[in-house]
């Protein structure tokens, strides 16, 4: 963008600026202020996003957030009302789907029921006018890639769900698209198969070095597979970040609640104390937070703390070790305990009446660290565990 500012004063110069620098900086895919309306409903609202070559990018959001519409615009099944979609620097927003170097893996696979596995995979290659012998080689390659050996002659009806998913993947990869779009690719698989397939997809993407854009409503799926996640709501991108950033530094209250579990305390910002942001909350007293941003005093904010950051103990950490600003302490009574194997979640009813959720890893086999309902406990967390979100 600084490129524009630099060229502006010499706009009259007869020779245009060399574009190489810009091209090198260009992401593989640039979505530029794209908007799509259905009637009066804004499915995608002036959305901009850059995706680099080789990324595994996830579009995450609740149903109806516009993520599928965005994906369909990338595939060409919908045409944007406004904005540009630049693939490798060329605007493809108006290019017909069958002329785009982009392929899609469909949610329910959309395998051609009258064609064999082989012919499904070869379908796109035949349309591209590839010679027969090359098609055979490529199909064999794809069949081996997704481990479908021996099933080439089967019809989709004779395949299991997992096998269909593989055929769909092979079919969409066969043309070696610049970008592979995956629309809820694992939604139809059961949990165990879904987890192993997630790993296979990641491995495949790394091996092929291809750019994958996946649409999902399953945050765990997005977190597991994607290198970056764009969270969408109401046609807009709420945050684009790595899985870790998204979870540990959510940009808004909505994201904090949408991604994972969270405890939220509304309050007002008080004057600083040292390098601590001080928030006077309604339900949890004064909370000290370490926050790189500096919220305006008296601003209404909410403090977000992930359950696993909240430790429970009978007495709390010894107060002589740390000063009062270093630890936030809340007292309450355990109201609910759920043992989940690897960890246990507790609900603690604070003295203010609010309920706090804490989850603690079961690092020991014996239950010496467990708390039971009715027990009075101290819940504590450090200022670093708090995220202050402006309302």
């Amino acid at each position, binding site marked *: 963008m600084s490129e524009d500012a630099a060229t502006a004063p010499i706009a009259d110069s007869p020779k245009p600026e060399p574009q190489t620098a810009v091209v090198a900086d260009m992401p593989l895919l640039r979505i530029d202020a794209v908007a799509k309306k259905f009637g009066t409903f804004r499915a995608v609202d002036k959305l901009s996003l850059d995706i680099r070559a080789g990324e595994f990018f996830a579009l995450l959001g609740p149903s109806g957030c516009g993520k599928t519409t965005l994906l369909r615009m990338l*595939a*060409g099944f919908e045409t944007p009302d406004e904005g540009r979609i630049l693939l490798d620097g060329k605007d493809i927003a108006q290019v017909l789907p069958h002329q785009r170097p982009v392929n*899609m893996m469909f949610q329910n696979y959309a395998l*051609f*029921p*009258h064609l064999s596995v082989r012919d499904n995979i070869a379908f796109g290659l035949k349309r591209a006018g590839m010679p027969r012998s090359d098609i055979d080689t490529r199909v064999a390659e794809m069949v081996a890639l997704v481990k479908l050996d021996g099933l080439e002659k089967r019809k989709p009806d004779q395949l299991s769900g997992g096998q269909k998913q593989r055929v769909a993947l092979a079919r*969409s990869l066969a*043309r070696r698209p610049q970008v592979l779009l995956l629309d809820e690719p694992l939604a139809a698989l059961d949990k165990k198969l879904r987890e192993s397939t997630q790993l296979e997809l990641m491995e495949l993407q790394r091996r092929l070095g291809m750019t994958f854009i996946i649409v999902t409503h399953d945050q765990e799926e997005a977190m597991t597979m994607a290198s970056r996640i764009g969270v969408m709501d109401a046609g807009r991108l709420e945050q684009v970040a790595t899985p870790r950033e998204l979870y540990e530094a959510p940009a808004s209250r909505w994201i904090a609640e949408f991604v994972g579990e969270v405890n939220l305390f509304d309050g007002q910002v008080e004057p600083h104390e040292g390098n601590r942001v001080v928030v006077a909350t309604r339900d949890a007293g004064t909370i000290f937070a370490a926050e790189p941003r500096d919220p305006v005093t008296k601003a209404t904010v909410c403090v977000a703390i992930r359950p696993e950051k909240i430790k429970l103990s009978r007495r709390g950490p010894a107060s002589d070790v740390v000063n009062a600003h270093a630890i936030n302490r809340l007292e309450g009574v355990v109201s609910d305990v759920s043992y989940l194997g690897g960890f246990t979640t507790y609900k603690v009813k604070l003295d203010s009446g609010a309920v706090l959720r804490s989850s603690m890893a079961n690092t020991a086999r014996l239950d010496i660290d467990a708390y039971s309902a009715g027990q009075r406990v101290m819940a504590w967390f450090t200022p670093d565990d708090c995220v202050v979100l402006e309302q």
Partner: protein
Amino acid sequence: MSARRIFARPARRAAIAPYVWMALFFLVPFIFVVKISLSQTAIAQPPYTPVFDLTGGVGAIKAAFAALSLDNFKLLLSDDLYVFSYLRSLLVAVVSTSILLLIGYPIAYGMARLPARWQSVAMMLVIVPFWTSFLIRIYAWINILQHDGLLNQILLALHLVSTPVVWLSTDSAMYLGIVYSYLPFMILPLYATLAKIDPALLEAANDLGSSPRQAFWLVTFPLSLPGVGAGVLLCFIPIVGEFVIPDLLAGSDSLMIGQTLWLEFFTNKDWPVASSAAVVLLLLLLAPLLLYDRLQRRQLEAR
């Protein structure tokens, strides 16, 4: 196991119903027809011999069996009248079914692509003609096609013709009548298969590099073939035996087998020849039915 047996029993009993129906109302009457086709015409009541008479004892029944012969079938094959009737029936059925497919497919395709709530309206429009008696609709066509009928009036008013065209008692009128009457039987099975095709399949074809036209021929059309088969059979078989439409709209110079059968039965009172004509017609129609059945079975096995 026991639970399965309990549920299986009423289901098995229900499965017998169509067989009982077919035996009572098709097989038994057909045996009568076959028997009459092997008899000789006679001026009597009933108008053929031999007549099985159980009162005559075993000897009489044996004699009756001995009197049966294939003479009527030999007559059918030797007389041009019958051979031509069969050939004309097949020709009319092939031509009409082809026209029906050419007209019905685009209509069914259009219906299947309408928004859901317009699909039921379109369906109603296809079915609505059935609310009027078939005969009345054919008579209405006579009205439209006659010398000073609506069609000629319009053609004259538009100066497309200078003198009224003869429509009635021509093959064109007959084809018009047949296509008009059978169109719903072509459209409905086609529509049923086309509407079932997942639109995502066309998007997938599109995504993999086929233009919408290629996607139609590579995906939609092959997937609609069961509907094409059902529509073709539903039209072809009754058209071969069609009697009313050719009788009312076509000329009398060449007859379809249905008309010949009628003549033999009611005008010539030759029940045995009429019966043998009917038996041959049935055998002719069995061929496409068996073919269709085989194709369907192969499709089921492929699953």
